[in-house]
């Protein structure tokens, strides 16, 4: 039996990987890739949230927003710290990487339009994070990550509940109902895109084979839908999905994947798309990608400049 097959079999049987000595090259690469996506996603969630931070309706909601952003930065720190232990040069990763090479979701390359979108961001995107990281906590074969996720998952739950409260409260205000619906209309499919390419289009997944995660993309998408749809229905927000009794799963009422108009933040439902094109769109990045990454890197670069001048 070759080394890769042996390791795959071991982790499938519950073996917990604790360090580089336990891994092969393929495991290490898949793990680094996964943690980079996780770290980038946590960190780059902050710039969009900051765009509407000053619109928080009360002082306490401002404190909540700050606590959430602080959590996200803390989660990013955990992911990057794990990468550092795996031999990555984290300073380079953070401060010298070009904007388009960051791995955060496309949905984070946008400014938010109002406080309601802050809520839907929490309720939908943090729910996606909670779904993905909850699965990792349950199934991952990488011990140090699993232990770190206890705290992360609890905090993500707090974020998504905050989102639900903002949405539920806004739905009781006739003036804000429309804003909730408008936010949901663009953010719902965005959240579904977090889970990536459909299972039938994927030949294999190192993440699954090495048990970095446990559920497939489509299974995770279903899990997200199974809580997001009933929640939205309970507060009277329309969503383009419903539970199909016959198929025993959630099905979408609109084309997915689908073309998106980034300027107007609108899905073009008359233009169904392919996953290949979606990946292309992800790689082209959204409108604020450069600005947001520059914001993360600005302080480090300015300090570096100052050091040079001082010598």
């Amino acid at each position, binding site marked *: 039996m070759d080394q890769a097959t042996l390791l795959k079999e071991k982790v499938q049987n519950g073996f917990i990987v604790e360090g580089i000595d336990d891994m092969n090259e393929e495991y290490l690469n898949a793990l680094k890739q996964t943690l980079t996506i996780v770290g980038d996603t946590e960190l780059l969630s902050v710039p969009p949230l900051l765009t509407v931070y000053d619109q928080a309706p009360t002082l306490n909601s401002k404190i909540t927003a700050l*606590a959430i952003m602080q959590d996200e930065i803390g989660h990013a720190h955990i992911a990057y710290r794990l990468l550092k232990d795996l031999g990555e040069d984290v300073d380079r990763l953070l401060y010298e990487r070009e904007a388009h090479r960051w791995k955060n979701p496309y949905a984070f390359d946008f400014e938010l339009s109002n406080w309601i979108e802050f809520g839907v961001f929490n309720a939908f995107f943090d729910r996606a994070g909670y779904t993905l990281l909850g699965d990792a906590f349950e199934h991952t074969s990488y011990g140090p990550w699993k232990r770190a996720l206890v705290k992360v998952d*609890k905090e993500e739950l*707090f974020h998504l509940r905050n989102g639900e409260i903002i949405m539920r409260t806004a739905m009781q205000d006739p003036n804000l109902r429309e804003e909730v619906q408008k936010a949901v209309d663009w953010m719902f499919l965005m959240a579904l895109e977090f889970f990536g390419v459909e299972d039938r289009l994927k030949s294999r997944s190192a993440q699954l084979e090495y048990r970095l995660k446990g559920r497939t993309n489509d299974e995770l998408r279903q899990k997200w839908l199974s809580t997001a749809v009933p929640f939205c229905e309970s507060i009277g927000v329309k969503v383009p999905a419903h539970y199909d009794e016959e198929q025993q799963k959630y099905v979408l009422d609109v084309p997915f994947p689908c073309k998106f108009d980034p300027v107007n933040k609108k899905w073009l439902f008359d233009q169904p798309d392919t996953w290949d094109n979606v990946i292309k769109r992800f790689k082209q990045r959204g409108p604020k990608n450069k600005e947001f990454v520059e914001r993360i890197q600005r302080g480090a670069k300015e300090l570096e400049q100052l050091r040079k001048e001082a010598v």
Partner: protein
Amino acid sequence: MDKRNTETEKYWQALKEVMDPEFPISVVDMGLIYHIEKVDEELHVTMTYTAVSCACMEWIEQDIRDRLLKEKGVRDVHIHVVWDPPWTVDRISPEGREKLKYWGVSST
């Protein structure tokens, strides 16, 4: 403090369903509730938070209010937040401690 009587006991039980925003521990087991008093059809809840900078005060209060209003004969809920005596981990119930232990959080 914590003066429970047969009249208000059911409200303490009801608040065991109101959870901390992060951990599945109720506000009662967290030791946040100091006193519940019923005056006619109105409830007066005296409570505290773990910190003055608690980011979730408004929503915890809303959750408490919503839950208590479901009780028969409760027309209104008044929440009085106090900082004296201050909350310490000693106020967490044995049940709460067990749950925190399960989640790997120290409560001492």
